[in-house]
């Protein structure tokens, strides 16, 4: 085969180094970042648990059984039963779904909205940028949980509203990260070249700048995922998150666990372990991805 200018294609291809395959990249990540790989494995297990919940369950997670209330873990109920006789293992397995949907949903929603605001704000610059930043300061002046709490109370309890409530506080944080990265990319020569070629502003921003913010964006998402899962658990714990009877880890802890702690400590232990593992996994993965994708931030927060 011969290329349009008459050079055999083989020669052209040999010039460029082969891009390593996914397997190679993954293998390298596991070797260099063992902790990050463990975090990734935890997240994969969580994802599989969430998707396969209907097949992994041993009992109906919502069905109550008056004869088995506050049962200790045994062969029939692996992790025991709660005060209504519901199987805790099955509820935890199903809770993974709620936790993941809310965590990923709110993180993506907040990061995408924040990312677009950050991109446009930094690209336009000047007064627009200044005003946008001051407006975002308003949202960032409140602790994530307090803002989410007020939001979710005013929207009412439902999965959709919890996702919105948690995503709003993420917007300013996401916008900061993307803005910083766009500010440096904007000054690069290839952007100047694109503009000189007559590429329109919006196209320059979304086609030429946006793809280069993917690294910081992934880092941002994994870093926020853990706290989103944590906030969901906290909101549900306070009774302002995912409504009953849908199993949610935070909610499982709120059923006056303090009251049953003495008789049935498994009621308190297992859902909390599930939350901690999920957040731990995403934090480990987030740290490792940050080190890998963004060497400038290496070792920092």
């Amino acid at each position, binding site marked *: 085969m011969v290329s349009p200018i008459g050079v055999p294609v083989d020669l052209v291809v040999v010039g460029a180094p082969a891009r390593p395959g996914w397997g190679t990249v993954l293998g390298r990540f596991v070797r260099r970042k063992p902790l990050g790989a463990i975090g990734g494995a935890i997240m994969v297990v969580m994802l599989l648990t969430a998707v396969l919940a209907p097949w992994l369950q041993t009992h109906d997670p919502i069905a109550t059984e008056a004869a088995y209330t506050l049962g200790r873990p045994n062969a029939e109920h692996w992790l025991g039963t709660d005060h209504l006789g519901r199987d805790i293992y099955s509820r935890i397995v199903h809770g993974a779904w709620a936790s993941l949907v809310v965590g990923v949903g709110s993180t993506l929603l907040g990061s995408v909205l924040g990312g677009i605001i950050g991109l446009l704000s930094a690209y336009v610059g000047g007064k627009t940028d200044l005003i946008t930043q001051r407006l975002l300061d308003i949202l960032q002046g409140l602790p994530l949980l307090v803002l989410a709490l007020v939001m979710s109370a*005013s929207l009412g309890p439902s999965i959709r509203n919890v996702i919105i409530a948690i995503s709003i506080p993420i917007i300013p944080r996401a916008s900061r990260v993307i803005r910083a990265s766009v500010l440096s990319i904007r000054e690069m020569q290839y952007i100047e070249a694109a503009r000189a070629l007559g590429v329109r502003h919006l196209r320059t921003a979304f086609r030429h700048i946006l793809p280069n913010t993917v690294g910081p964006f992934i880092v941002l998402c994994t870093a926020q995922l853990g706290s989103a899962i944590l906030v969901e658990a906290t909101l549900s714990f306070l009774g302002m998150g995912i409504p009953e009877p849908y199993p949610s880890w935070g909610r499982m802890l709120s059923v006056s666990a303090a009251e049953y702690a003495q008789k049935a400590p498994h009621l308190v232990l297992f859902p909390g372990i599930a939350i901690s*593992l999920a*957040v731990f996994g995403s934090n480990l993965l987030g740290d490792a991805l940050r080190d890998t994708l963004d060497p400038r931030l290496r070792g920092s927060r």
Partner: protein
Amino acid sequence: MKSYIAQRLGIAILTLVGMSIVIFALLRLAPGDIVDILFSTAGYVNESEKQAILKELGMDRPYWIQYLDWVRQILTGDLGKSYRYDVPAWDVIRPLVPVTIELAVLSIIVAVVLGVPTGVISAVRQDTALDYVLRVFSLAGLSMPSFWLGMVIILGMVSWLGWIPPLTYVRPTDNFKAHAIQFALPALAVGYRSSALIMRITRSSLLEVMREVYIRTAWAKGQAGRVVIWRHALKNAILPVVTVIGIEFAFLIGGLVVTETVFNLPGVARFLVQAILWRDYPIVQNLVMFIAIVVIFSNLFVDMLYGVLDPRVRYG
């Protein structure tokens, strides 16, 4: 310096005004109001009586008048009346403030005492087994919900020591020992979480400073490792740590919401949740505004502190 402070103050005040609008609007979005809740609990159904209560609470007026009224109240220090308790909001909030401040201060102390030394050790022993253990330990702190950690602490106390922590608030004047234990446990649960952030920032900041030339000089002239790290390096590495401590102090309120609930402490944070559930607007909007003011001014304070801690920082 003076113009810098004036500028920062101006921005802070503008931000607070924006926040007050956001808070006010969010609370009016909420479906159902205090009157509905009062009615459903008391069992009233009389429509004219409902209108009378709305009028008495001033809730029949247009939103913008209600908003301006609220702003006027804040500026004059009058925090309005609690819908639920029918007493001035400040009377309800005031006794709660010391509880939350005490808990927040204790938590920060735990966080600093735990976070700074582990961060230093982790940085000095970078990439050793000890470093890995400490990093995992701190990441675990970031991953556990502090309310759950609190529950587990209570659980451990109950099952291993057979001792139940006092579940109702004890005044320090009544029984100081019981009071101390009552606050130590939640402070430990909340402080552990914040310590993780402080540890991470101490570690990375110290690692950066340790690569600098003047540190190499200190080593080269034969100074003891202890002196190099604690006196030379840490002094310059502490600035970002102070920032994080400042931010954490303000954001602790978030962590306290649930911890106060778990340990049944009558603090501001726990009360906020209850007030939200009751739709007690004057309480909620004033509490959230209070939190916003604390956050913004502690950020400002930390920025000002820079100039004191690091003479290289000058405000233009």
